[in-house]
């Protein structure tokens, strides 16, 4: 899965922005990474470490 994340643009140094939460239980989440928007489940998103900018 790490490779798939990198392929979608989740590389060290990339900017991410949380756009939307799911309507039920705030899952899944819509994130803007690079120039595109991706939907992820929270359990998978937990694998990504982010730093506030």
């Amino acid at each position: 899965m790490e490779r798939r994340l990198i392929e979608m643009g989740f590389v060290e140094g990339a900017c991410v922005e949380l756009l939307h939460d799911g309507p039920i239980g705030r899952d899944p989440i819509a994130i803007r990474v690079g120039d595109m928007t991706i939907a992820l489940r929270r359990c998978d998103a937990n694998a990504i470490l982010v730093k506030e900018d």
Partner: protein
Amino acid sequence: MDMVLINTIPEIALVGCPNCGKTALFNMLTGSSQKVANYPGATVESKKGVLKTSVGGLVRIVDLPGTYSLRGRSPDEEITRDVILGRVQGEPLPSGLVCVADATNLRLVLRLILELKSLGLPMVVALNMADIAKRQGSCVDEARLASELGVPVLSTVAVRKGGAEVLVRAIEGLLKTLPTKKLEWREPSSDDIRAAQTEAERILQVCMYRPGNDRVTRAIDRVLLHPVFGILILMTVLFVVFQAVFAWATPATDGIKWLVDLLNDQVNAQMPDGMLRSLLTNGIIAGVGNVVVFLPQILILFLFIIILEDSGYMARAAFLMDLFMAKAGLHGRAFIPLLSSFACSIPGIMATRVIENRTDRLTTIMVAPLMTCSARIPVYTLLIAAFVPNRSIGGLSLQGLVMFGTYAIGIFSALAVAWIMKRLVWRQRAEPFMMEMPGYKCPNIRNIVIGLWQRALIFLRRAGTIIMAMMIIIWFLCSFPSPPDGADQPAINYSLAGIIGHAVEPALKPVGFNWQIAVALIPGMAAREVAVGALGTVYALTETGDAAEHALQSTIASSWSLSTALALLAWYIFAPQCASTLAVVKRETNSWKWPIAMFAYMMVLAYASAFLTFHVTNWLVRT
């Protein structure tokens, strides 16, 4: 002479990430020459068409499934990789590649382009949707990009007339280029991918790439993905789709049935009585009618699906429904196929192609028939009207409650079977749910028309032939052998269907079925609503129209027990009494394994539930 030429025309493959407008480009290049088929042994569809170049030459264009990388994370992506590497049986190695990119999202696809470049095949890069890019303020130094990549780079607008002229000329150029090295590829590690991504970033910097700013999409998403409004809008959309498939198709469906009856009357009037006439009317015309009658519903459903998909809303619908569906082990995109199955599971099963994940798609296909389809309603109505007293409980009609109960059991069992399949049959490590949410786009009329036309052709050619074959077999079982002279029982009793029905009766006694039900279930395999007419035939009722309904109702009300009727009700919730469904499952999964598995598990559930219902009812009635 011509045959030899066709076999040796060169093939160019279109590759790119999903949502980059590749299919629109393919439609523009090949138009009506497209043919859709299945790759050998796979459920992935192959789309090929022929392009005529400006010098009159022919090129075959293949639209490969969208992929994010050559690693092949899904069957679609594997096929793309294997065709490019020339690993697929019977598929020629492409003479060249056209990498289609979304001009507003180069960052994502550039890494893929670098990976493809390393293969050494002749390549051009098409920056598609250039009109949208310009509108959003995106730009890149094309010339610099071409020199960095070492391949021609051009802009295309697939939805505008003449937007692909440059590409056609570039393809002509491709055909004259030779591969630069021997084709080889090994699976990259995380570090390889990181390195590729870094290189892609460097190139973007050097070419002064500015990504698009899609303010419109962000604004629309604030409403459509809003926790409250988003769901309300989604419910409305789903309701409209449901109404459309259920109600709007009805005039057309009725029209087709009327035409079939008209044709039947003509044949009956013109031809002498006998086997041939029976084959023509009850076998062939009825068979063809049974296939074509599904077309209006399929076309309407797919009209909505194509519009929702092309506009970008489908991803939002899947996003909103995901948590709910995931609990049952289903994918967010399964909602629309399952909803359509309430009208008829045939378009519903065809609609599962919007689910890319193979196991999710198969699970959805396997449970779709459990959704109470409209063909079950005549059977339910007959049984409930004959056996459930017309009383009210707390203001609600008892008959209505029982009807609702059958729907509820259907839905619940579908979710349960899906959950069981996920845990027991697949037993897989859960696939991470990663879905791109593309920018909103206006659907293109040509794409919609081509898409609909393809679906119709596929259904008629593939599923249609199997349905026809099954109908004729069933007709044969019900017509041979003919009753001997002086026969006092209805003809069906002497036919193979009757023989089979009587033979099977002992096995059905434990669930409370008598021989009349057993025999009626044989022609009832053709379609669910046929059982009502079949019962009328078995009981030798001569009334027609509405009088027939009442006659049948009173006949079974006086001769069946309550437990038998309820057992038959339970049987019909689960039993696979629909040959057309099995045919469509075969077509969509490209194997007989799944329709057979479906038949088996539904039969088991039908028998078990009928058994339970029969004996529990008996016990309750006694006490």
